[in-house]
Structures are given as structure tokens and as C-alpha cells.
């Protein structure tokens, strides 16, 4: 069946805690959705989310393509959690991993600054190194936070910089066909975790041990580690 849709998950959660009723339902749809998204957050943390591939068009960085040779680009996206890799290509639709996309090597921003300040190190016709920096703009409004700027070396004109990145967590809106960005097992773990959160609210905490047994080993270990870190400073136990 693959990754469960929200509709399937909703049924599974309520069935598990014997609350899938239409007359006098113990939980509103909004309560179930909140419990679902909290559980989704935990599983997302454990699994890391899928990689999003974007081209180097102006929706990713500006200017695009580079018209200057200083190798400085301003980030446009605001949903970046982690940048996996950045490439350089002359194709506006090129992606990381394409045959004609150069895989850039990530370095510290200071190294690129140093290279810009020094000469006699050799010259290249294509970009080689990149650095991304989370920049805080002048004020903390939504348009300014979560911005990553790109520095490349050497600065070469006419290049696009496609990127692979992991998004920030985005909760589901609760539409019937919505699916979480997790694995098939992860989508079931979300249901067990959500059910575990809801069961005590219905005075059915006796279901919790049974639900715990259904959680996959990977998610269990992640949650155990998270719980330990919350209780003890010895997070590496």
C-alpha cells in the first residue's frame, strides 16, 4: 500500500483507539490532525525527510544565471533545512546529478573569502567550491528568516547553481489525499504515535503498551534517544 494517505491514517488512528465513530466522536478532526502532525514531526526527525531537487533559476538564487564574476548569490528559498549539495551548470534546467552539472565541493565561507583575497593560486574556467551561509536580514519577518546565501569560487559568469536540499518540516493540511514525506513504515509509525497521544485523552491508556510494540525499531531508537536527551545531559548514552 506504500505511504498512507491522511485519510487512511486518520482511519487507522481512530480505529486503533476504538474512536472511529460518527456519532459523538471523542475527537474533532482538528484534534486528530494536530496529534497526527506532532507524530509526523517526530518521525520526520528520525527519517530526515526526502531530498528536494531544484534548478538554479531565479527562484533559487539571484542573480540567475550569474552575470557578475564575484561568485556571490542571494538565496530566495525560505524552506531550507539542510543543503545536501550544490552544482554548477550552464543549463537553466540542469539539476545536481546531471551529466553536465559540475559537482561543487563544500568549504567554509572563510576559505572562499581567503581565495578571493589572494592570487597566484591558479585559475579555472568553471566554479569549483561553494559555501552556504544562513544570513539574518535586517528584521525577523518571514521574508527574511531562513535565508541561505551562496558563495562560489571562482566566480564565473553565466552559470546556474542547482541544489539538493532537505526541506523544513511542513505539517499536513489534513486533505484526504495528503501524504507525509516519510517511508511507508514511517507513515504507519505516525499513526501509532498519534494514537498513543490520543488514547490517554479518552481514558484508554491501557492501549499504549500495545501500540509501543507496533512502532518500528528505527523510530523507537530515535524516540528513546530524544527522550534520554530531554532527561539527561548525557545525550550520547
Amino acid at each position, binding site marked *: 500500500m506504500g505511504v498512507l494517505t491522511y485519510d487512511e491514517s486518520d482511519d487507522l488512528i481512530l480505529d486503533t483507539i476504538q474512536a472511529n465513530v460518527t456519532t459523538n466522536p471523542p475527537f474533532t478532526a482538528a484534534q486528530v490532525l494536530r496529534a497526527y502532525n506532532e507524530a509526523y514531526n517526530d518521525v520526520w526527525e528520525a527519517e530526515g525527510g526526502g531530498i528536494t531537487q531544484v534548478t538554479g533559476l531565479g527562484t533559487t538564487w539571484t542573480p540567475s544565471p550569474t552575470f557578475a564574476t564575484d561568485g556571490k548569490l542571494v538565496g530566495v528559498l525560505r524552506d531550507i533545512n539542510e543543503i545536501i*549539495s550544490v552544482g554548477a551548470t550552464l543549463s537553466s534546467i540542469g539539476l545536481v546529478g546531471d551529466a553536465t552539472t559540475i*559537482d561543487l*565541493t563544500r*568549504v567554509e565561507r572563510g576559505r572562499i573569502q581567503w581565495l578571493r583575497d589572494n592570487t597566484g*593560486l*591558479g*585559475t579555472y*574556467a*568553471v566554479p569549483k567550491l561553494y559555501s552556504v551561509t544562513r544570513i539574518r536580514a535586517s528584521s525577523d519577518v518571514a521574508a527574511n528568516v531562513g535565508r541561505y546565501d551562496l558563495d562560489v569560487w571562482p566566480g564565473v559568469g553565466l552559470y546556474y547553481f542547482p541544489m539538493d536540499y532537505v526541506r523544513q518540516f511542513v505539517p499536513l493540511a489534513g486533505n484526504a489525499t495528503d501524504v507525509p514525506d516519510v517511508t511507508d513504515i514511517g507513515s504507519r509509525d505516525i499513526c501509532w504515535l498519534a494514537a498513543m497521544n490520543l488514547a490517554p485523552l479518552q481514558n484508554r491508556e491501557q492501549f499504549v503498551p500495545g501500540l509501543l510494540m507496533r512502532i518500528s525499531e528505527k523510530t523507537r531508537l530515535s524516540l528513546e534517544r530524544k527522550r534520554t536527551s530531554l532527561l539527561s545531559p548525557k545525550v550520547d548514552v
Partner: protein
Amino acid sequence: MPTLATIRGRVAIKINDADAKHASFDPLRLDHAIADAHIALSAMIPPPHLYVTNAFTMAANSDTFTLPTAANAGYVSFTQYAGEVKIRLVSDGRWLRKVSRSEIDALYDGVTQTTGAGRPRRFALWQEMDDDVQGRVHPRCGPAETCDLYVALTADDIRDAADLDAANVRFGRYGSTALVYHAAALLVGEMDDESLKLRRLNSGVVNLWIQQAQSLLQHESFRKTAVESRGPGRFVT
């Protein structure tokens, strides 16, 4: 003749560092290690020779000249002479005889005349602090004399190329492989224990690779010498 990009790829494979996302050395570090190794190895084998027609002109009535320093076709660095210099006058096709500076000075001892009437027959060279190679001929030139040059040159510094990726490494197969071994050994020698573990390398490989490089370099040297050897037969006119 491999390019620097080819050698870089081979070095990266040899040290298990062919992953831009988790690189121990960025491309610039790899290229500098290769360029340094290239110069070090070039100094251990016979220098390449070059025959350049109409290489320079001695001015009319002059008794001194400067050997050209501009990069020759196919070379990227300014010209540095590696010892052997032969000069041929274009006007009569004769090779000048190389003598010592003292001999030339002795021939001019007491001569105050500043105009010439014939063609030079011998020359002496010396190198000045700015690396220019100066020369003096005897007798003094009458009319201007255009000269061909047959010279031994030191190796290029690959870093002088306009595009390092496309720069040619002027070694044969033995020499190129020696360069890969030598550069790889230099890089492994710089790794700390953590990097060695990450790359699944043993530091003992440094000595092994240096020995391999030396052995291959010896074969490169034999190869170059063999090309110039006329063999054991007698000279027949």
C-alpha cells in the same frame, strides 16, 4: 598527454577521496599537490628540448642579446632555460660555438669599435638576478641577425595555465603514473588518523607509493634518454 583534470581524478581515486560532499581535500588542494609534485618530478628527469625558428634577433652592430622569456607555443609558464642552448644564424645557417664568458671578454680586450662588419661565430651566456639569460657574441653583428634556438627548458608550473582543468601534464605514461603516485603520497602524508580512517588508508602506503613513483620516474627518464640515443652503431657519412 593527460590533462590536470585527468590526473586529479586518478589521484582522488587512489586516495579514496572521490566524493565532493565529504571530501578530505578540495580540488584546489589536489591541484596544488599535483603541481608541486609535477615540478619536483620534472627536476629529476632530463628536461624537454625545443627547437624554435626565428626565436630572436640580435640588433645591428650589437654584441649582446637576451634570450626570449615569453612562453613558447604549448607552454604556459615564462621560459626558463635548463642548460643546453644552441644558437643558429638564419642568415647563413651556421651554429654558433658556445664559449665561456671570459673567452668572449678576452676577444674584446682593448677593442673600442662599436660597429660590426661580419657575422658572429661564438657566444657566451650568463644568467642575471631577474632570471633573464644574457648573451654576448663575437665578432660583433654587422647587420641584424635573426636566430634559431635549440634549447632545453625547465618544466611548466601548471598553475600558470589559464584553465587548470585543461592544462596539459607534459609527461609520458610512466611519468604521469609516477605523478599520480607521488601526489597521492604527498596528500596521504598530510592526513591525520581520522582522515586516514575515513579514506580507509594506511599511512604505510606513503613509502610504497613514493618508491613506485621513483621507479616509474626512472623508466620515464630511460625512455627520454633512449629517444635521443643513437645506439651503439658507428657514425656513417
